Each structure stands twice: as structure tokens, then as C-alpha cells.
């Protein structure tokens, strides 16, 4: 070899000063949004009340008291009382337990099945992809509530069947989103670099594709939590939910609809409670989406 020019290797200066670590910057950004904080606080409150309703109310949700029937909202009874004199606030909070649990089960089913379907079809592509996606298309083609109703009718009434029915209804969205993300990440050079480095497909899938694909899916999960709550409330409104005297939110709203003129709070206040929760979840999901962009 002839004259070799040997230059000193200079480390190129980083173009920008090191940013504050990502997580801290994100948190700082979030704290500056008051609406986000309110929404997050409300969701947190409902979640806690779902598992520990006793922390926020002293009344037994099932204790009837004819003397105190149909009381309007006041200091004693925050949401008033129903026709049997049961405290409505306490019933809403104890209803949280059932509805939130059903929502979590539904999201769990949708998450596991949707992620699974999406990953398998995005990853293996080809004929597997075609078959799975046509199946998902069929699910998408049936109106959500109709699908849920048929499933509940087949499985029987109760909180768990309602959760399963709603979960199956939101699987397609998860599957589609996951598949799109997997298809995007799969072609990126770092996946190829890992393959060229001798990594097995299982390793590539678990360590590279999954962690980089689940961001939008997580956002969708928050958004779909709102959808699931409404679907569960709808089903229990129609009477497919838990058996009386236990009450889900939908049941509470349904019970009050005969007394709308005389005791408006029976339907309205549980309704507002649910609406606020769903709006909060939507706002959280929107905020996360903006951040991840």
C-alpha cells in the first residue's frame, strides 16, 4: 500500500446541547396544561373510587330508607336519593366498581387479541395477513352495539358477558392499528441491522418491533376506554348488565328515566358523571397523541 493519509480522528461536536431527559421534559409540558390535570385528576378519582368506594361515601348503596326517598341533591346526600331512599352518590361510586372492572376486562381482551392479531398479521404478512384481516373486516362490518347485543344474548346477562361483548367489539381497531405500526417498523433499517447482526425473528419482534409499535396502540387504548364505558353503560341501560340490586351506571340512568320530571337528578347526575369520565379520557388520549407527535 502506498502513501496513506492518516488524519486524527476528531469526535464531531454534538450539534445541540444535551436536552433534559425526555421523561422530565414531557412531564413539565403536561403540568403546564390545566385541562389535562383536571381530566387526569377526575379519571384518577373514578379509578380509586371504583376499587375503594368506601373512602368517598359513608352510605350503604343497598340500604333502603323510605323516609328519605326521592330527596334532591344536598349536603347530606350529594346526588340525592332514589325512590327507595338509597343514597345515589354511594350507588354511583359502587357502580364504578362494576363498570370500571368491565371496562378493564374489555380493554384487556381487546388489547391481547388485537395486539396478537395485529402483530401476527403485520409480521408474517402474505396469506396469514389476508385471512386475519378479512376476519377483522367482518367484525368491522357489523355495527358495534349489534355485535355486542348478539354476544350478550348468547353468553347470558351479567357484568362479565357484557365486558366480553364490548371487548370483542373493539378488537378490530386494535388489530388494525397494531398491524399498521408493525408494518411500518418492520421495514426500518434498525430491524434489518438487528437481523444482519444475527438476531432471531422472535428477538427482533420482542425487542425491536413491539416496543416501537405499541405507542399509538396505547393511545388508542385510552381512547377506547371511553368507547368501552359508553358501550357497557348502554348495554346495562338496556338491562343486560348486573342483576339488581347491584347497579352499574347504565342501570342507574335507566332506573331514573321514569322520574325525569319529578326527580331529574336520578338520571342526570349519573349521566353527567359518566360523560365527564369519557370526556376526560378523550382529552387524555388527545394530549398523549399530540405529545407522541
Amino acid at each position, binding site marked *: *500500500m502506498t502513501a496513506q493519509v492518516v488524519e486524527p480522528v476528531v469526535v464531531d461536536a454534538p450539534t445541540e446541547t444535551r436536552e433534559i431527559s425526555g421523561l422530565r421534559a414531557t412531564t413539565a409540558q403536561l403540568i403546564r396544561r390545566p385541562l389535562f390535570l383536571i381530566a387526569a385528576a377526575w379519571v384518577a378519582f373514578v379509578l380509586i373510587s371504583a376499587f375503594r368506594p368506601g373512602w368517598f361515601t359513608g352510605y350503604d348503596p343497598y340500604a333502603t330508607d323510605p323516609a328519605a326517598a326521592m330527596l334532591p341533591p344536598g349536603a347530606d346526600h350529594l346526588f340525592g336519593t332514589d325512590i327507595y331512599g338509597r343514597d345515589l352518590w354511594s350507588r354511583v361510586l359502587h357502580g364504578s366498581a362494576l363498570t370500571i372492572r368491565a371496562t378493564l376486562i374489555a380493554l384487556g381482551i381487546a388489547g391481547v387479541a388485537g395486539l396478537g392479531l395485529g402483530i401476527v398479521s403485520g409480521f408474517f404478512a402474505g396469506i396469514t395477513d389476508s385471512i386475519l384481516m378479512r376476519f377483522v373486516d367482518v367484525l368491522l362490518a357489523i355495527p358495534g352495539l349489534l355485535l355486542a347485543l348478539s354476544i350478550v344474548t348468547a353468553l347470558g346477562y351479567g357484568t362479565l358477558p357484557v365486558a366480553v361483548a364490548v371487548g370483542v367489539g373493539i378488537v378490530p381497531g386494535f388489530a388494525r392499528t397494531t398491524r399498521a405500526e408493525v408494518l411500518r417498523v418492520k421495514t426500518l433499517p434498525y430491524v434489518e*441491522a*438487528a437481523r444482519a447482526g444475527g438476531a432471531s425473528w422472535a428477538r427482533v419482534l420482542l425487542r425491536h418491533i413491539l416496543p416501537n409499535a405499541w405507542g399509538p396502540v396505547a393511545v388508542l387504548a385510552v381512547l377506547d376506554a371511553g368507547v368501552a364505558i359508553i358501550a357497557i353503560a348502554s348495554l346495562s341501560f338496556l338491562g343486560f348488565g348486573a342483576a339488581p340490586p347491584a347497579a352499574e351506571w347504565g342501570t342507574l340512568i335507566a332506573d331514573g328515566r321514569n322520574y325525569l320530571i319529578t326527580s331529574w337528578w336520578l338520571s342526570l347526575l349519573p349521566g353527567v358523571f359518566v360523560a365527564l369520565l369519557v370526556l376526560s379520557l378523550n382529552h387524555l388520549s388527545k394530549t398523549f397523541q399530540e405529545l407522541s407527535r
Partner: protein
Amino acid sequence: MTLVSITGLDVGYLRRRQVHPAVTGLDLNVAPGEVVAIVGESGSGKTTTANALIGLLPAGGRITAGSAIIDGVETAGAGERTLRRLRGSVVGLIPQDPMVGLNPTQRVGHQVAEAVTLRGVAKPAAYAEAITFLEQAGVPDPELRARQYPHELSGGLRQRALIAIALAGRPKLIIADEPTSALDVTVQKRILDHLGGLVRDRGIALLIITHDLAVAADRADRVVVMRHGRKVEEGDPRAILRDPAQAYTRTLIAAAPRLAHGGRVVPRFDVRDQPQPAPILTLTGVGKTFGTFRALDDVSVTVPRGRTHALVGESGCGKTTTLRIALGLESATSGSVVLDGTETADLSWRAFRPLRRKAQLVHQDPFATLDPKFTVGQSITEPLQSFRVGTRRSRQARARELLDQVALPVSYLDRLPSELSGGQRQRVAIARALALEPDLIMLDEPVSALDVLVQEQILGLLADLQRDLGLSYLFVSHDLAVVASLAHTVSVMNGGRVVEDGPVATVFTNPASEYTRELIDAIPGRRADAL
């Protein structure tokens, strides 16, 4: 009489309620009909200057001081209404990336005509005029092209359509922001030649923004070198090339292969008189078809052990496909691939896997080649984990050693790719490729996404590693200047075939084919000849 007069311009970006300066105290004048080039690395403020000039600063950008007068109108702090009157009719902009510069849902002719109608021309007349502008911009068969959509046009043609749009407003100044860095060298040369001719004939002033001093020196009447938002040097390109006043300018000249050697391309290695070492990789008669498209046709390539073999050609010539076949990421339709004595053309993934320890890959795009969720340490040790080499502790030690080899501080082990610059990411990618102690590294355009100076550093690093570790490289590039500074032997490819091959010293000084000669002529830096 000056067309553009910038005095004491300060531009900053608002981040977390603080203004981070991007351009500081810039003075710049452009006379009518003058060609001025602003040269600098990424982050030097050259694009910010151009954007500030026409009021197109991205969100958060602020002009904090100074003035920028175009054609007698103050643009610093001017309202949208004032600026709109300037855009198109006084200043035309040719954007950086021709692939995203056109609206994909509109025919090309309409997009040019739209720019014409802004001048107040009626629609039918505007379309006819648009076709003339396309013709002037050097689009062959303009009537056909005007009816086509952007995706039907090649990168070079799209760039010409964008030039036609810029011309359509009959501007007094055209700003070209890295107009050709996304294009092949020969296309780049043709377009820049054409653009230079156009502005000269019409007396339009041209402001070229580029990171490549060689490009600037070839085209401009005046060169402005910028660094860290400040002007470093300004003057006639010949004077600057002959006698640069600043050390920074001297580094830029040294980094442009053609400028450094007085206008000639001098290969770093001359192996004409030396025996060729035994090959580590041999491709013989490799063919590859995608559907009916023949991507490769009878390609034979040999990489001698301990040396660098380059595959050169324009985009679509099959060089990357060749590399992917050599690496077993793609299978050949015909022909044989022998890697270190083993025939690999028909091996399954599983059977090929042990051979991966011998051949590794470095990708083109430093921003996509590292998993954004992996720290530098995790990325580097991943191949070791895949092959279950060593323990956690020994792998960590190896990662530190590798970082040292690629001249990065050990403290970078815990950093994420988003915290690194392009050059640093490419160093990490090289470290990852080195982890398994391979004999052969395949480099797919490893420096084409980097600035000239960083390119120079990475090429230097690769050369050092080759000398210290006895590595062989198969090196894919469209840039002959880069090939000259790294490769021993070269295969020139065109249309899926090898047009010419041999030692770089032979091919570059005495090209046998017309195509190779064209490629070599296209390397920027000709003006240094005249010195």
C-alpha cells in the same frame, strides 16, 4: 444598487421561552444577476438565513435584530401581506427535497400554471406559459410532462419542475436550498449547469445554499462561508480556494477531495502494481429479477481480503441490491455468492446465520439505523447477545472497547440515539458492525447523509479501522469523490450491469467507458483546476 441587503441580522428559535440564536450579526449583499453561495455545515444557520429572508421561518423562529431588505422592501418584521407580494414575483424558492416539493395529487402543469396565475395571467394563457417555463427549466417533452403527476417523474425531472415553478413568477432572485443534494451526481451537475445558464441569461440573482464548498466554488461569483450562525469568510471563490483566510475554510477545502488536489480526483490508494490478495467475497454472474424487472444482470464482483471494493453508480443501478444479495438479505435469481470459501447463494436463513459473524452491515441513514428505544450500549452489544457471546459483564467491557475504537467517549454507553448527532450515530452503527469481529463490513452509502466535514471524519475512521483490524469493505456509493478517498478497487454499475471495474487509480485516471468519465466529470470542484 443591491437586490438583497442584509445588515446585522439576528435570528433565533424560541425554545422553552428562551431564544436560542441561530444566526448572529449577519451582513450579506446580493447584486442583481449575481450568483452567491452560502456554505456551511448543518446548524450553521444557512437555511435559517434563507427562510428569514422570505419570512418562512418555522414555528418559533424570530428575527430579533437587524434588517433584511429585498428589492427595497424591509422583510424583517414585515407582515404576511408585504411578504406575499415578494414571494414568487421577487423571490423564487427551490426547495431542498424534490421528492416532497410537489403536490402529489395535482398534475405538474397545473402546479406551474398556479405560480403563473399569481402574476395575474388568465388561466388558459397561464397553462401555455407553464409549458414554456417547463421547457426553459430543461424538462424534455414539456407538454407530456405537464399532464403527468409528480410520481411519474424522476427526481431530476421533479427538481426541474420545481425550478419551472420558481421561474414562473419571473423573480429577480432565486433561492436554491441544497437544490441537488437528494440527486445523483450526474443529474446534480446537469441541473446546476442548467440553472446557472438560466439565471445568467435572464439576469436573475441566485442564492445557493449548500454544505459542499466544491459545489459552491464551481457555481458562485461570491462564496460566503458560515459557521455557528456567523459569517466566517466571504469573497471570490478563486481567491478563497487559493488563499483561505480562516482555518475553518481550509478544513472545508481539505474535506472536498477535488478541491484539495487542485481540481483532480486523486485516489487515496494505488494498488495497480500490487498483487491482489485472496478474495473474501466473490459474486459470479449474479442476476436478480423482481417480477419482470431485471434489477441485476450477470454481475461479478470480487472483494480482496483487507481491502475496500466500491460499487459505484446512480440510483437504481442495482448497487444496493448487489450488497443485499451478498449479505443474504435478498436471494439471487441466478449466479453464485462465495463468502469466505462458503457458497451462500442458496443457503437458508438458519444456515446462513453462522456466516453473519463474518460479514456485517452499516446502513445509509444514521437516523433510522439505531433503534430509538435502545441505548448506545444496548445497540452495540445486541449482535453479541444474538450470538450468545460472553457474559453480561464481558459484553459491557467489549462495548466500551468498541466505543473507544470508533472514538466516542465511554460515557455515551447510556445515551439514546436522539441525543447523538448524525456522525455520532454512524460511529455507533460502525461499532455495532464491529462487535462480532467480522472480516468483511458492507457499507451502504455510509456517509451520504452527512455533512462534508463529518464525512471526512467517518471515512478517516473507516480507513483507520481497516488498517488496525485488517477489515475488508464492500462499499456502495453514488459519490465518486468518497470512493476515491476510501476504496482500492471499484466496479462501476449502470442499469444492473457492471460497466467497468479495476483498481480505483486506473479507473479514475483513465476511465475506459464513457459512463465512468461522465461520473468523474460530475464530481464538483472543477474550478480548482484554474488555480
